């Protein structure tokens, strides 16, 4: 056990001594926003995608790029930029992918309305299928013959 512990310690030490260069994260002055601006900032972030870890929003991500972008967005809002201007700034650089709700335009029609289209196709298929099944399952009933049969039985 002692040997194991010594080896572990040695391993940790060698890790600590390994020359590792790290990403530089400059200390920047905090940006103070008015309560309304702060609210807009908070509302905007969950709708923006972190491009490093794509399933996280800019609100949640701790990736250095997300920190940089949050800072940039804060400073834009502090300078009076509108939500639209912030989004344009981001999409100009990273494309529409950064928006979780991309704008409705020619390129995104299929994305927005594709599910509706699929639903419509499914409904039409279902309608036609059930109609055909009904036609097969319910043959015309000869009422006179049926009455006669029942009458015969009752007698």
């Amino acid at each position, binding site marked *: 056990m002692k040997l194991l512990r010594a080896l572990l310690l040695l391993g940790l030490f060698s890790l600590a001594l390994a020359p*590792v*260069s*790290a*990403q*530089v*994260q*400059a200390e920047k002055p905090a940006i103070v926003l008015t309560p309304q601006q702060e609210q807009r900032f908070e509302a905007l972030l969950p709708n923006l995608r972190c*491009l*490093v870890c*794509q399933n996280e929003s800019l609100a949640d991500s701790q990736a*250095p*790029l997300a920190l*940089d*972008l949050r800072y*940039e967005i804060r400073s834009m809002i502090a300078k009076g930029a509108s939500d639209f201007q912030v989004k344009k700034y981001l*999409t*100009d*650089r*990273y*494309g*529409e*992918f950064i928006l979780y709700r991309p704008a409705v335009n020619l390129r995104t029609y299929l994305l927005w309305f594709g599910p509706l289209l699929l639903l419509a196709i499914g409904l039409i298929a279902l309608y036609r299928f059930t109609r055909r099944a009904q036609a097969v399952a319910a043959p015309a009933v000869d009422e006179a013959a049926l009455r006669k049969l029942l009458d015969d039985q009752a007698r």
Partner: protein
Amino acid sequence: MRYAIPVIVLLGLLALFAVGLGHDPRELPSPLIGKSAPAFELAVLGGEGATRVRTQDLQGRPVLVNFFASWCAGCQEEHAYLMQLAADEHAPLVGIDYKDAPADGSAWLAKHGNPYQQVLLDLDGNTGIDWGVYGVPETFVLDAHGTIIYKHIGPMTVEAWNRDIKPRLQAAS
């Protein structure tokens, strides 16, 4: 005949999945393709005092702008190949050292070799943001007018070079 429609639907779906799943979701199309390279004014690594290089200074010939950093594992992966490209193909490489301490960048290049004609410093990462960089290494192909004609995401490979970069570079020069 009864099965014609379901089979066609199935084949269509399979084709859709094949295309969709073949995409690497980490490789995003850059909105900057076909546009002028975003403006920057950056210090030169190991440069004298106040020398600054601007985007316009890259014009006049096609150039490859490679964002890298000493802390980036993918950059180490591609580095040997970049060295080879610089030596064999005279690839016009300009490096932008992204969010890296200049001393770390210099030490890294001294250790692994320097394939760049020029190395610029993007200390705060703002140039990276303007260029839409979201993960180093990324390599931009610029024509002689400073227009971005292609962007390669991730480490440079022989396949990517021969298929995507070299033909464009030749067409641009």
